[in-house]
């Protein structure tokens, strides 16, 4: 049975990461790669005997699970940029759905994001940012706006026609991620956010908001009286819409900024990229996670900011666990057969996330690897387009190639999370105490135990041949 996202081999995530008891230290490893300390662990500890010893030694030296090559760096940064543009749409629409669409029983137009939300200023980009991570604009990204206007067809048509032609950003992917968080949230036991959704306080807030939302609608009010739990569950789902929207509001500018820094030559290695992510994680870890609903211009706080739900613990880590590791066995690229025992009975044993996912489409249905890959395809930087054209089948299988690059980039993000957790809860990599270094090693080994499964792609990404 694979362990949970252990922070220490003997400590569960829920107890270790309680924000009430943990004071976040600042990252210790902020030096650029050129001045990175040599691996102290290599000097003071015998070599690891773990299956992934080489990767563990790399992590101990401040590196990532992904080998540090210029080709890997180009792929992951290019993918961050390509991911960030649709992500800019995802977070805005997720918040729009959580705040405005809310419990609309017929949400036909929930993907028709209003101008108000396109103009919404990102709290981490633009001139009015609370903490400016990206130097660009705070409103929707220009490439996103251009795509929304013309689509892949490159023609200005009514938005409905683009939608029907599926010439749009695929929000279905974002909703699938949200559902993974909601579904696994009960099982993961992480943070306090999910537990709060079962609290009396939340139920009272939800009741208040539901009644306000359906005020003057006797049909829906009657349904609410008949099936209150169903409406409450919908509210919980909406709260996860908000949760994920607030999470991605930060990640989009982080990825935009990394892309710009790479273009400027300021990110020159995979560890540089990982360090930027680690620093970003710590810089914005305290960002509140909340859920506000706007009804007739009035704001209803379903989950108020004052609850103190922090971005790192209530959004980032549950997201990583639910989406990167677990997700669901039915994601569009491959469906597993539960009757044949291909689906574990325990949710914690799920391993269908991006770190394990098979990026090959299956069978004859012609399903692209994922809807996300389709979204990213529209925003690939030129250097990555050129790169893909020269490998495998060029443009014909670019969706698979970029999906594999995406897998590499998410291994880099996961490396950043692992290093961030190590920084927060364990010891610096250059700690002189061998016991501390040993604790770090056990932590790394416990993390990499999760990739011993045959379907894990950690082995694959160690070579450039995996495309």
């Amino acid at each position, binding site marked *: 049975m694979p362990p949970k996202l252990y922070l220490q081999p003997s400590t569960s995530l829920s107890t270790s990461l309680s924000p009430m008891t943990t004071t976040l230290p600042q990252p210790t490893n902020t030096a650029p790669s050129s001045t990175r300390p040599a691996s102290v662990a290599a000097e003071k500890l015998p070599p690891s005997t773990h299956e992934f010893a080489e990767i563990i030694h790399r992590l101990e030296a401040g590196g990532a699970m992904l080998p540090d090559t210029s080709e890997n760096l180009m792929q992951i940064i290019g993918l961050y940029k390509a991911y960030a543009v649709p992500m800019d749409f995802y977070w805005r629409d997720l918040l729009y759905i959580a705040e405005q669409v809310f419990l609309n029983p017929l949400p036909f137009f929930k993907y028709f994001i209003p101008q108000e939300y396109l103009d919404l200023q990102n709290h981490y980009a633009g001139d009015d940012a609370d903490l400016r991570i990206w130097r660009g604009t705070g409103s929707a990204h220009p490439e996103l706006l251009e795509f929304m206007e013309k689509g892949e067809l490159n023609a200005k048509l009514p938005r409905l026609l683009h939608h029907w032609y599926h010439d749009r950003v695929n929000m279905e992917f974002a909703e699938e991620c949200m559902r993974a968080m909601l579904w696994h949230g009960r099982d993961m036991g992480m943070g306090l956010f999910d537990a709060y959704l079962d609290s009396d306080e939340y139920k009272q807030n939800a009741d208040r908001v539901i009644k306000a939302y359906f005020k003057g609608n006797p049909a829906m009010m009657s349904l609410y009286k008949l099936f209150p739990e169903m409406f409450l569950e919908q509210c919980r789902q909406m709260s996860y819409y908000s949760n994920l929207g607030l999470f991605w509001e930060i990640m989009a500018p982080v990825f935009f900024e990394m892309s710009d820094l790479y273009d400027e030559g300021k990110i020159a290695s995979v560890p540089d990229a990982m360090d930027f992510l680690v620093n970003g994680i710590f810089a914005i870890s305290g960002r509140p996670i909340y859920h506000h609903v706007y009804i007739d211009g009035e704001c209803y706080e379903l989950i108020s900011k004052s609850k103190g739900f922090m971005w790192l613990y209530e959004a980032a880590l549950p997201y990583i666990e639910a989406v990167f590791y677990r997700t669901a066995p039915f994601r569009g690229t*491959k469906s597993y057969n539960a009757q044949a025992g291909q689906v574990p009975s325990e949710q914690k044993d799920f391993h269908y996330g991006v770190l394990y996912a*098979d*990026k*090959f*489409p*299956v*069978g*004859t*249905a*012609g399903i*692209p*690897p994922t809807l996300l890959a389709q979204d990213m395809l529209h925003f690939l930087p030129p250097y990555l387009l050129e790169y893909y054209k020269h490998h*495998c*089948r*060029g443009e*014909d*299988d670019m*969706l*698979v190639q970029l999906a594999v690059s995406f897998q590499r980039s998410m291994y880099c993000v996961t490396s950043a999370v692992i290093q961030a957790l190590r920084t927060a809860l364990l010891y610096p990599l250059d700690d002189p105490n061998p016991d501390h270094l040993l604790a770090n090693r056990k932590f790394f080994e416990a993390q990499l135990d999760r990739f011993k499964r045959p379907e894990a792609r950690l082995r*694959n990404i160690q070579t450039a041949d995996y*495309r």
Partner: protein
Amino acid sequence: MLSLLIWIPILGAIAIALLPQSRARLGGLVISGAVFALSLVVLSQFDLTNAGFQFREYFAWIETLGLNYELAVDGLSLVLLVLNSLLTFIAILTTKPDIERPRLFYGLILLVSGGVAGAFLAQNLLLFFLFYELELVPFYLLISIWGGAKRSYAATKFLMFTAISGVFVLASFLGLIWLTHSSTFAYESLLGQTLPLALQVVLLGMLLVGFGIKIPLVPFHTWLPDTYVEASTPVAILLGGVLAKLGTYGIFRFGLGLFPEAWAKLAPWLAIWAAISIMYGAMAAIAQKDIKRMVAYSSIGHMGYILLGGASLTALGVVGAVSQMVAHGLILALLFYLVGVIEAKVGNRELDVLNGLMNPIRGLPSISSLLVLGGMASAGIPGLAGFISEFLIFQGSYAVFPVQTLLAVVGTGLTAVYFVILLNRTCFGKLDNATAYYPRVTWSDKVPALILTALIIFLGIQPSWLVRWSESTTTAMVAAVPILSPSTPIVEVLGVEGLGVEPGVNRPG
């Protein structure tokens, strides 16, 4: 005009030797294309109402030997002539442009084409035999030079079996001449021979063995799997599509044509032989792990249908058999080609290794789709050419040989079984992403398969274009067969009438 169909490819083979290496392929395509176009001209000018021979050509050659250059075409040979020229063109089209020693390769292909055309057109038994043997050496070289890992073994085996085949055929021809005291090998002059039934049976038996090796029929088939598998794709197309038809043509032309009484007497045994071949071919195909070998064994089974149609001695059965020759030639060519493309792209033909080729992005979806269609056509799915011919054979033979026909129908079901196995393992399932970095399929890869597919579909939905050419001839062939008492057992025929020779019974045709 008919001579052109023989001599353009043969002289073309010599001309190609004079071309630069880089132009050999183009030269081959032009020559084979011209021959194909010429065969279409013959097709368009062919009188459908005339059951006899047309476009006759005659040149006296070695008259003392009874060997003259006599050519003609009828409904039986016409369709095979067109099939030969088409598959020669397809074979050259499917040849890799960077093949080694291209001049020799294309030259040999054209030599085969000319030889086979000559055999189909020859109206003199000795002339037929010369052309029949002419393709032996080119095929041997094509297999032994451009074949697979075991090409020497396969080529030698092929040479030995087909040489023996030639011995039996020649012995039968010579026996016929000697026993009838004929002064000529002219086909039509031998048509009315009145040899005793027992002698006819013996001579027919020799022909059946000779051509049975060539087709091949069980138990003379053992050279086929090795040869088909080791031959390169274009050569396999010609082996299955053309060479095998030389055997079935020979059986119908000379077996049924020259010895109708014996044929009628042996018909029940031929039907049993056909059923055994069908069942054996299908079951052996099911057991295969190599998809090319599976297709090769499927050919053995499908040749059985042709024999069954001929054995039925009904107009429907025989016309179905001739249609099956054409349909099988097209379908087998398609299957061998597709298997060749898969092998070229994936580097493997093993059922246990291949998987998920229908994958739309990293697989070979178009080739897989065509393979599905080819499998359906081979299994006799309605709407495709294979169905029409098999249906006609079954319709024609059921009334005469119900048990054998039912076994053949079961064989069709078994064909579906092994093609489902092939398609399920090869095309469907999960593409292995550790190995699936196959080169893309280009349009030039698809064109030969699309041509064959279009023909298979067209002839499937417009079957009159498949049967109209040979209907008159086959009806006349069936009508020429005397009605024998089915109650006389063959051993009795041999025992009672003995092997005595009655001089002067030759009746000029």
